[in-house]
C-alpha cells in the first residue's frame, strides 16, 4: 500500500512521517514516532485512555486518522513537563495518589488540561463532567477529581 506523508507539531517539535493510509493517530504516535504516553485501551473511543490535545481541543487519538492531522499542533502527556519540572497537573496527580496502575492517567491528565485551559477555576461538577469520558478501574475517581481541583488552585495562586 502506498504510504502517505503526514506532518504536524508534537509537543512543540516538528514531526514528519510516511504512514499507511488509515493509520490512527494513536498508532502513528506510539509505533512510528515513539510517544507511548497515549494508551490504547478500547480502540473504540469509549475509555479515553488515548486522549490527546489537537489544536487546543481534546481528541480521541484512536478514532482520529493521522493523515487528518497535517499541520496540526498536538500535545500529549509526555510533552507537559518542562526541563524536568512536572506540569502542575502531573504534580497534583502524584501528590493526591491519583494513579495506581497508571493506564488511564495520561488520558485523564489530557482531559483535565483542556478543562483548566478553558476553565481555570472549575467547580467540582465541571471537573466530573470533564473526566466523564475517561474510565479508571483503580482509584475510585475521587483522588483524580481532587488532583484536578488542587492543580486548578495552584494555577490560580501562581497567576495571582
Amino acid at each position, binding site marked *: 500500500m502506498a504510504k502517505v506523508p503526514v506532518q504536524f507539531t508534537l509537543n512543540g517539535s516538528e514531526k514528519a512521517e510516511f504512514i499507511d493510509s488509515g493509520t490512527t493517530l494513536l498508532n502513528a504516535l506510539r509505533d512510528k514516532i515513539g510517544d507511548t504516553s497515549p494508551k490504547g485501551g*478500547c480502540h*473504540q473511543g*469509549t*475509555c479515553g485512555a488515548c486522549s490527546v490535545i489537537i489544536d487546543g481541543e481534546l481528541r480521541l487519538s484512536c478514532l482520529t486518522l493521522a493523515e487528518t492531522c497535517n499541520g496540526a499542533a498536538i500535545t500529549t502527556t509526555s510533552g507537559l513537563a518542562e526541563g524536568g519540572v512536572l506540569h502542575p497537573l502531573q504534580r497534583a496527580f502524584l501528590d493526591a*495518589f491519583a*494513579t*495506581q*496502575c*497508571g493506564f488511564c492517567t495520561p488520558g485523564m491528565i489530557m482531559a483535565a488540561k483542556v478543562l483548566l485551559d478553558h476553565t481555570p477555576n472549575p467547580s467540582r461538577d465541571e*471537573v*466530573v*463532567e470533564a*473526566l*466523564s469520558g475517561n*474510565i479508571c*478501574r*483503580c*482509584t*475510585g*475517581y*475521587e*483522588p*483524580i*477529581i481532587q488532583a484536578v481541583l488542587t492543580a486548578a488552585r495552584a494555577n490560580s495562586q501562581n497567576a495571582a
Partner: protein
Amino acid sequence: MAIRRGRGVAAINYPTGMNLGGDPTQALVHSTPTGNFMVTLSSVDLGQGMKQIMAQICAETIGVPTDRVVVDTADTDTGPHCMGTFASRGTHRAGNAVIQAAKEARQVMLEVAAEELEVNASDLETDGQGNILVKGAPQKSISIFDVALSAHFKRGRSISGRGMFLIPRSYPEKETGAMKPSTCYAHACTVAEVEVDDETGEVTVLTVKNVFEIGRALNPKMVEQQLVGGSWMGISHALYETTEPYYPNRDHGGTDFNQYLMPGPGDLAETEIIVLERPSADGPYGAKGPGEMCANPQIPAVANAVFDAVGVRIDTLPITPERILRALKAQAN
C-alpha cells in the same frame, strides 16, 4: 410510587492469602558493588504498590534508606517462585520472604564490616542512613558503600540472602471438617445509605462509611489509596458489573468491556474511610492484606440497604433495577 431510603450494614472477616496446595513465595536479595540492594521477586506490581512496599521492608530489615533498594518483579521464567498477586497476599507472603532474605544479607554485610573495622559483627549496628557503626562508639564506622566494595573486590563475599515464606496447606479434620485456611485475617465493616426508586428500580448510593482493620499500614497513603478505590469497586460489584447484563438471554450479553458497566466519576457516593491498625502476629512488620478485601463489605451492605429501603432481598449480583422490580412484583403478588 416513591423514592425510598434505606441503610444497611455488613462486616467481613477476610483471610490473607489462600489455602489450596500451600501458599509459598520466595525472594532473593543481593547487594550491588556500590551497596545498593536488589530484591528479586516473581510477584507482580499491578499498580497497588508492591515494589514500594517491598523496598520499604527490605530497607527496614537491612537498615538502609528505601531509595537504596531496587525491586525487580515478575519474571516467572527466571525469578524465585511466587504464587502471584491476588487474594490480598502480596504484602504478607512476599514481605515475609523479603524479610528473611534481607536478614541473611544483612548478616553477611555486618560480617564484612566487622572484618574491615576489626570488631565482632555482633557489636555492629546500622544507622538507617547507609552507615554501619560500632555500638557505643559511633565514631568508629564504615559506609555500606565501602562494605560492598570490600565484599566484592577484596573479601570475595556475596552480600546476599534467600527468603522463603510458606503457609502450608491445611487439610480439614475428617470428623469435624475443621481447618485453618489462613493464619492472618483482616476485617472491615461498611454502612451504606441508598435511595431506591420503587417505580424504576434504580439505586443511588448516597453514602458509604467504611472501617478497615488491616494490621500495620506499612505505607499509610498507599493503604488509603487502595481503600478508596476498593470501596468504589465494591459499589461497582454490588450494582453494576456483570458479563451478562441482559437477562435471561446470553445472546444479548455484552461482547467486550465497553458493555461492562462501572460507575463513572459522576456516580460517586460520599465515601468515608477509617483505618484501624492491629498489627498481625505473622505479618511483615505487622501487615495484613488490604488489597482484595477492601472491595467486599460494600456488597452485602448495599444489599441490606436495599432491603431496608424497599423490603426485598436481592441475592444475585449485581443488584440491577430489573432484579429489584421483579422482586417487588413477586412481593406484591
